């Protein structure tokens, strides 16, 4: 009975994250924000450490740090002297280093499992986490639906979007905040090192088979769910950490998609 409950929790948590990752992931690909996602994910270590220190739920602590990093990044977005790329590099590694230092100070804390933070440990997902994933995920998807057209418009051409009345800065900031939410929700499942791949690989696999932006969102989400399902099964059966297992499943699907699109031509 306990086993069934665990499997159900794993599946629910994984699928919840995959559902949110689909719509966000395609925009990460279209807007070339892979590195941005990685920077947010790296900052999660600091969040986990601070969460343990202040004894608050990890999801909230990670969310707080990721939001702070997203805000700092957006403040630097139009810097006249530094490219976004450079600012990202500084923030990603700065927050990772800070997180590692805090973790070192807390050595000996039985709750601290560095490996689980880096690579994900779906076994640690609690009922509370599931509620957070679905509640937060629904909120993220709701906001995504609201900003869909302006976000797509500014992705295609920011100046044209602005002339047509899109509040470009605001929509861009909202999307960054949604990504920060996504990181907080997903870090327990895939781990911070591999988090970005859950956003990018399903979207990349979907590209050759779709003709519209909406179609790409749907297919990327489906492929993400399949990857999570297959990956969790692997993690469970072969006692692997859940993150690498999910990413490997996504990679396998990506390979298949390349093969299928070649054959189709």
């Amino acid at each position, binding site marked *: 009975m306990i086993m069934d409950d665990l499997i159900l929790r794993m599946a629910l948590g994984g699928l919840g994250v995959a559902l949110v990752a689909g719509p966000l992931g395609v925009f990460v*690909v*279209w807007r070339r924000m892979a590195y941005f996602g990685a920077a947010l994910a790296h900052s999660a270590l600091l969040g986990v450490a601070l969460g343990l220190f202040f004894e608050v739920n990890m999801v909230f602590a990670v969310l707080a740090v990721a939001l702070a990093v997203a805000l700092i990044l957006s403040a630097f977005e139009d810097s006249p002297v530094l490219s976004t790329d450079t600012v990202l590099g500084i923030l990603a590694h700065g927050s990772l280093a800070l997180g590692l230092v805090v973790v070192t100070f807390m050595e000996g804390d039985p709750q601290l499992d560095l490996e689980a933070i880096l690579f994900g440990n779906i076994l640690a997902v609690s009922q509370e986490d599931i509620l957070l994933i679905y509640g937060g995920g629904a909120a993220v998807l709701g906001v995504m639906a609201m900003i869909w057209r302006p976000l797509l418009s500014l992705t295609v*051409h920011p100046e044209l979007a602005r002339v047509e009345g899109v509040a470009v800065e605001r929509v861009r900031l909202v999307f960054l905040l949604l990504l920060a939410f996504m990181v907080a929700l997903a870090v327990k499942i895939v781990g911070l090192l591999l988090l970005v791949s859950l956003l990018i690989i399903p979207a990349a696999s979907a590209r050759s088979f779709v003709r519209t932006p909406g179609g790409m969102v749907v297919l990327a989400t489906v492929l993400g769910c399949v990857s999570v399902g297959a990956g969790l099964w692997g993690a469970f059966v072969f006692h692997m950490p859940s993150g690498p297992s999910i990413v490997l499943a996504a990679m396998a699907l990506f390979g298949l998609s390349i093969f299928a699109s070649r054959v189709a031509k």
Partner: protein
Amino acid sequence: MSENTPIRPSFPQTGHDHGVCVETALARAEELCRERGARLTETRRHVLELIWRSHEPVGAYALLESLRHTKRRAAAPTVYRALDFLMAQGLIHRIESLNAYVGCDHPGDTAHGPFLLCTSCGQAFELMDGDLDAAVEEGASKVGFAVSDRTVELSGICPRCRLAGLSDDEAEGGEAGDEAAPADSPEPFTAPSPAETPSRLLVEVDGVTVDFAGNKVLGGVSLAVREGEIVTLIGPNGAGKTTLVQVILGLLRPSRGSVFRAPGLRLGYMPQRLELDRALPLPVSHFLALGGPASRDAMWRVLDEVGAPHLLDRPMAGLSGGELRRVLLARALLRNPDLLVLDEPVQGVDVVGQADLYRLISQVRNRHGCGVLMVSHDLHVVMSATDRVVCLNNHVCCSGHPEAVSRHPEYLALFGPQVAGDMAVYTHHHDHSHDMHGDVLPPGSENSAGNEPGKAAPHDHG
């Protein structure tokens, strides 16, 4: 009946039985297609009938609209294919300046005379005059020009409208109601020329200065665009043209100076570049919808207007340079703008396509009466399509009528007479640049550059 008898007289009398015209035309078309072994399908026949039933040239969109209300509802591509077929068979003609079609009076005869387009009743007449055709052909061959298409379109007033005194009374034209163009499409050729009527001021910048990191990109630039006017910004690379456009669009705040935009001004913007990520699948219809909610019908209509109706479901990534420009223009037009701002509207388009695009822009201005501000690299290609030119090199060097600017000393200093002369090679549509060819002007008149337009030295057209 003889092959060359026109189906209807050149200027039909008020009382003529139009139904007979239509019947005759359809019978003739069927006969011709049978002879040639071409298939006049139901749809093709129906489209031909609709064109003939209308008293005015009919646009493709209006055809689609009227088909919608019949049982023979056809998909748009089918209708366009039918139009292509009818054109290829010489059963209909396309009136370029109206973007519309008329039935051919004498199918089977390859020649077609000049079209007389009445600006009052909107009807088109074909002037069958063998002598005129011969004269045109002869004139062209005299200068060694090989004619491939001899379509001439003249606009004016037909005898019937002249007799009727051109009053608002449209008793005669009213009978053409059945296939009339959509109500909101404005009458062509009615845009007032800016010189005649003082039109609404759309935007005005005054003393605008922009500094980038201590680098003065624009210094004290003033410029205004009014309704119905085409203003072209011209200048070398780095002259600040795009910066000025950004100030006018409200994308950039000037360091100094004021910007006025008419209250409620609707802007249509066509950017210089569009770089899509390869991973973004985007059909043209979805791209157009990004500008605001638009029905598929509205998209059809606007794509038809820019001459690209077949692109609606094509992916943006596969468009050619010219197609992309047309789609960008369509997105700007969908907003029903008061002012169109076009940044390098012909970039990435070959020379022939450039002339087409500039003609299209003038037509759009004529149909919508909007103001147009565009940026261009070279004056000579845009000359015929613009009312006023502003030559910019961080400040306004000179501005005014294109002819005057092309001979202004500051313009020549900026581009050099050599460059200006090279450019003039492409251009057959303007006639006063001869002072840039040393051989046309008498020696010593090189300094005529500062002359007023219209005072050009007399020259021989040989």
